[in-house]
Structure formats: C-alpha cells, structure tokens
C-alpha cells in the first residue's frame, strides 16, 4: 500500500453506501408520487401503495443515515479558508483544460457545498416528509407547502447527485476507489488535496 493513502474508513464507506442505497430507493419509489409522467416506476414496487410504503421506510433510513454522515463530517465541511476562495474563483479548475493547483484540504469547496446542501436537504425532506406522511394531522397550508418544498428539494438533490456521481467517477479518474475500498493513489492525493496529503503523510512519514 506504499502507493496508496487511506481516504475513508470502513464505517464511513458503509454509511455512505447506506445513504446511497436509500437515496436511490427513495428516488425510484418517489418518482411516481412526484408526477403521473412517472407512474410506470410504481411497477418496480408492485403498485403505488407499495411504492409509497417503501418510500416511507427508505425515507426514515435515509434521514438518519444521511444526517449522521453530515454531522460526522460537519467540522470538515462547514468552514472555508482563503485557499477555498481561490478554488471558487477559478471554478475548481473544471472550466478549462489548463493545469490548476489549489492548496486544498481533505475536501474541496465544491465537496463542502455538496455536503452542506445534502445536510440541509435531508432536514427539509425529512421534516416535510412527516407532514406529507400524515397530512390530516396538520393544517392544510403546512402540508401544501411541504409538498412544494419536498418536490423542490428532490429536484435539487437529483441535480447535485448527477454532478456528484460524475465528479467522483469518470470526471476525476482515481477517485472512486476512495469510496469502494477506501484508498486513493499517493499522487492523486498530492494533486487534488495537497494540504490533506501533507497532513496525513506527516503523520506517517
């Protein structure tokens, strides 16, 4: 493993895949509820009633696992330093083919924003989900607003996830290993997250 550095521990990776699995279960079971255009997705679950039940169960799993993931990484993702601002100013180097070097820690500002969005979206989707789950127990306007926010956050989440999946796979070769078996290449770490690289390699010279 001389050429590799551990990026995510086993528990971090398991938690991530629990969130992923429940997210896609929610996506597939929720599409039919979102619009009649997607009624066909109900068939995956054997009808709308089952899909809605699966949506509720997956929703609870997603809420707690995603919230846990967010809170466990809150310290790493909630602060932005001067290097992060430079990253923002240059679009993270994603807007040109030229070489860019940013002095980035364990997470770049794009990843931080994604984590913050997911945290907020989890809270909003979870809370509005409770109102939608039991609409007769709350005022009509609360449920109406919840349906709107739930749908809006869903759209936002799907769009962010498309970008997330792209950047973590084919957009940045060498990245996906971090989430599959926990390790990234030494050079990958040095280029993408130099500040983090120095921290972890100083600990283990």
């Amino acid at each position: 493993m001389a050429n590799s550095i551990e990026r995510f521990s086993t528990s971090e990776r398991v938690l991530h895949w629990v969130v992923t699995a429940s997210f896609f279960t929610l996506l597939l079971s929720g599409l039919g509820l979102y619009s009649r255009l997607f009624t066909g997705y109900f068939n995956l679950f054997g009808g709308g009633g089952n899909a809605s039940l699966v949506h509720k169960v997956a929703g609870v799993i997603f809420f707690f696992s995603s919230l846990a993931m967010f809170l466990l990484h809150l310290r790493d993702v909630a602060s932005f330093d001067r290097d992060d601002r430079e990253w923002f100013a240059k679009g993270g180097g994603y807007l040109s083919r030229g070489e860019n070097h940013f002095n980035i820690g364990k997470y770049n500002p794009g990843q931080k924003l994604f984590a913050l969005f997911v945290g907020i979206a989890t809270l909003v989707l979870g809370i509005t989900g409770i109102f939608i789950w039991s609409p007769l127990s709350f005022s009509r306007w609360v449920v109406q607003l919840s349906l709107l926010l739930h749908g809006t956050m869903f759209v936002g989440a799907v769009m962010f996830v498309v970008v997330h999946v792209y950047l973590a796979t084919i957009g940045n070769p060498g990245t996906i290993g971090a989430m599959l078996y926990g390790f990234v290449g030494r050079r990958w770490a040095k280029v993408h997250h130099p500040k983090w690289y120095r921290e972890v390699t100083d600990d283990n010279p």
Partner: protein
Amino acid sequence: MADNVNQAARKGFLVDTARCIGCRSCQVACKQWNKLDADKTANQGTFENPRDLTPALYNRIRFVESETGGTVNWQFVSERCMHCGEAGCMKVCPSPGALYRTKDGIVAYNKEKCISCKYCVSACPFNVPRYDSNDKVSKCHLCTDRVSGGMAPACSKACPTEALKFGNRNQLIAAAKAAKKTIYGLDSLGGLGVAYALEGPPEKYGLLANPQIPTAIFLWKDIIKPLGILGFWGSIGAMVLHYVTIGPKRIEEDVDNKGENHG
C-alpha cells in the same frame, strides 16, 4: 394528467340558494342511496348539523346566520364536491384511475385504486375530500351510478323545492342567466360542475370569491415539475458536455513511484 372536460356534455347542479328551505332531504337521500352510516353529532347551539363534511357525509346544508335589524337571517348553502372543470384533486392524484372524470364531466373515484396518499386533500380548493376508515378517498361523486343510468342524483331527486337542479350544465346556466340570476362558478377552475345562483356576493354565503388551485400545489405541478425535468436532463447534459469538451482531470500516477504497484 390530461383533464380535458367536454363542456358541452357536462352535467351538474345549479343550486338556487333562494329556493332552499334547509330541510336537508338532500343529506338524508345521499346517505340512503350511497349506504353511508350516520355520524354521531353534538348540539353546538345551531340548527346546522353536521358541522362539516365527513367520510360518510358527501353533502350537507351549511347554515349562514346573519343579523339584520334585530332579526336573524338564514342562508342555506348546499355544500359538496364542486366537480371542478380543472380539478385540483385530479391534478395531484398519482394513482391512475383513482380519481377520474366521467363522460358527463363528473369527478368520480375508485377506492380500490386509491393509494391513500391524501394529496387530493391538500390540492382541493374547497377542502372537500375526506378519508374513510379504510384510508380511502371519499366524497360526492354526483351519484355517478344513477347519472350513468339516466337518473338524477339522489339529493336532487329528493329536493322538494328544486333548489338542487340537475341537468346539462350549459342549459342550467343559460336558464339561470335568462332569469337574471347572479351565477357563481361560471368560469373559475374551468367552470364548476356545481354552480350557484346567488342573491349577493359569494362571501355572504361563505363561498370563496375567487377559488383556485392552492398556490403551493400550482407551483409544484406547473413550475417545479417541468423545471425539474429540465434540470435533470440539463445536469446530465452538462456533465456529458464537460467530459467531451474540457475532459476529466487525469492524474499521472507514475511520476514519483515508478515501478511500484498502482494503488
């Protein structure tokens, strides 16, 4: 999704509030025809009874009490599903066939197809749908079973004063217009299947002056939904475009560790 009502073929009510004597025969007839259980109610100091629609009460007479010159005035307002031309309930219902429009323009439902999501409760401009003990939608269906057999709905059949006139909606409205009545429900929400002849502003009868699909529901279905589909494909397209134009960030792994195994 396509909720296109054939205006010429629409059947519905013209509720002539001035003719209503508050006898509530309509309530009883509805219960009898639709085999609905009685609800236990309590005296709350008014003759209005029950005080709200329930899963077992598809229609009721709302008593509007007002005082003018020391005397009490009663207005009787027949209340039920309005069978909107553009129905909020049908707009949000995710289960095909659970809420549907008949060829007569009636908003009917099939409890077996209802998936208990209760979106219709939130989307109804008039707060009409209720859920029964089996967690299924329940509301006035304008006696679809009677109407399809050429009969008038039970409530209208029982009405002794012709306050509840049933028939072709266009004809009912034309007749009411000819009689110089103020009509409620002419154009709002694609025209209400239950129109009213009023003698004053709708507010006086406790009716919404300008009924419409709740704003949040409209934004969800007509703004966020199309934008969301656009956003989804837009983000996929943007990623593909990024990959083929700017391309991925490739890292040469072998610069300082030649000969070693690649991680």
